């Protein structure tokens, strides 16, 4: 199914764990440095209300004065677990794209504010880079360096799977439960 900007609470609340979604609109990259910066009280370089944050440190090069995305898959999201929930609540972030899933704090925030965790396929940097059609701007490039900067990505039909929804469900919790049982049997 399609999810197009603006990313309203109504659209997000309609999504459920397991949905294959294609996102179109503007998303912002943000990873370790910027999450810590915002959590420490830093001013966001863009308006995050109803935004989607992409946990991604892309390879971007300037060709003939234009930013060109060479590779742009997701990075592991769990490192942002201490910050993500509070930032969702503070700024009204509607969704996060990443990989590996996140924990109970983020899941609770998703339910409270009406947000989703979208899982992109880690390592699939070319398939995903193809969906970034334009890079309007970049912020905090000097402070944080290229992989940690806030890149504005205009994406078209960016493919993701909802693995944590706004109703308190998490595929990661479910899979971990199943594999824990299997492990207990194997080593018990």
């Amino acid at each position, binding site marked *: 199914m399609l999810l197009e900007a603006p990313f309203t609470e109504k659209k997000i609340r309609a999504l459920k764990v397991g949905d294959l979604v294609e996102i179109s609109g503007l998303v912002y990259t943000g990873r370790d440095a910027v999450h810590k910066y915002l959590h420490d009280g830093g001013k966001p370089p863009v308006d995050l209300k109803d935004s989607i944050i992409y946990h*991604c440190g892309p390879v971007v090069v300037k060709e003939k004065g234009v930013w060109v995305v060479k590779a742009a898959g997701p990075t592991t999201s*769990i490192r942002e677990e201490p910050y993500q929930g509070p930032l969702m609540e503070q700024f009204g972030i509607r969704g996060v794209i990443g990989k*590996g899933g996140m924990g109970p704090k983020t899941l609770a925030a998703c339910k409270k504010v009406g947000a989703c965790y979208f899982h992109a396929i*880690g390592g699939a*940097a070319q398939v995903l880079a193809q969906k970034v059609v334009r890079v309007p701007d970049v912020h905090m490039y000097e402070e944080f360096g*290229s*992989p940690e900067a806030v890149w504005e990505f205009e994406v078209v039909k960016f493919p993701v799977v909802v*693995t944590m929804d706004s109703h308190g469900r998490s595929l990661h919790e479910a899979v971990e439960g199943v*594999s824990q049982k299997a492990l207990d049997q*194997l080593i018990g």
Partner: protein
Amino acid sequence: MDAKTLQARLLELIRRTSCEMPPDMIRLIDKAWRKEKKGTTAKYAFGVMRDNIKLASELSQPLCQDTGTIICYVERPDWLREREFTKAFEKAVVEATRKGYLRQNSVDSITGKNSGTNLGPGSPVIHFHETSAKSVTVRLLLKGGGCENVSTQYTLPDTALGAGRDLDGVRKCVLDSVHQAQGKGCGPGVLGVCIGGDRGTGYVTAKEQLFRDLDDVNEDKVLAKMEKQLVREANSMGIGPMGFGGETTLLGIKMSARNRVPASFFVSVSYMCWAYRRNGFKISANGRIGRWLHS
């Protein structure tokens, strides 16, 4: 071979490693894709991986944006000096970064500043070994941060796991590491494992196993059997590609052992993601590439 030729060959090695999946890994991913049931998220994930492998090779762009720690092993005949190789390799790394085959991936751990060139203390990592052969063998591994972060080391005995100081204890540690990693290391992965050694050599030896062909058979019969059994057991946990649930959680395990002191018994696990970026070549004194190791 002049410095320029060596540098050009090394740049091509970096490009191929970053952009082209080794054939042994492609075969395993295709096999895993066939195994997953139609309509599942796991099948979808493998489908995206296969598309990505094709696209990266066609576009000559990185399989994964995290081009990782640059780990290079060199078997060096007398005619090649370490400092000559290092200089040529560093120049190739800077050029590869400028061209976008490598991400700017070297961060000063004290100031937090990204060098922008992939050069800095400890980057890239180069290991030299002397060889009596006439040609140089260069092996390269680009290991992303996600899978490095889920790599781990156990000390036997481990009370929580009920793991004793024996091979069954080793088995328990390896299975626990797969469970702990879930989808965070970009599975289905391959594990390099070292039994024993000190903490340092344990990790290094575990990582070195990742250079092995995925379809080789361990020369040690006990380890060969363990490798097979552990892949089967790990896959029975149902974690699946990306942790979505599914039939395939691991594509291989490569084990090795080092002697240990009586007091220590480490089990070191190096997790490599499905975007398995490793290659290498043999190059003669006149600069001719004799053979690609994984193309």
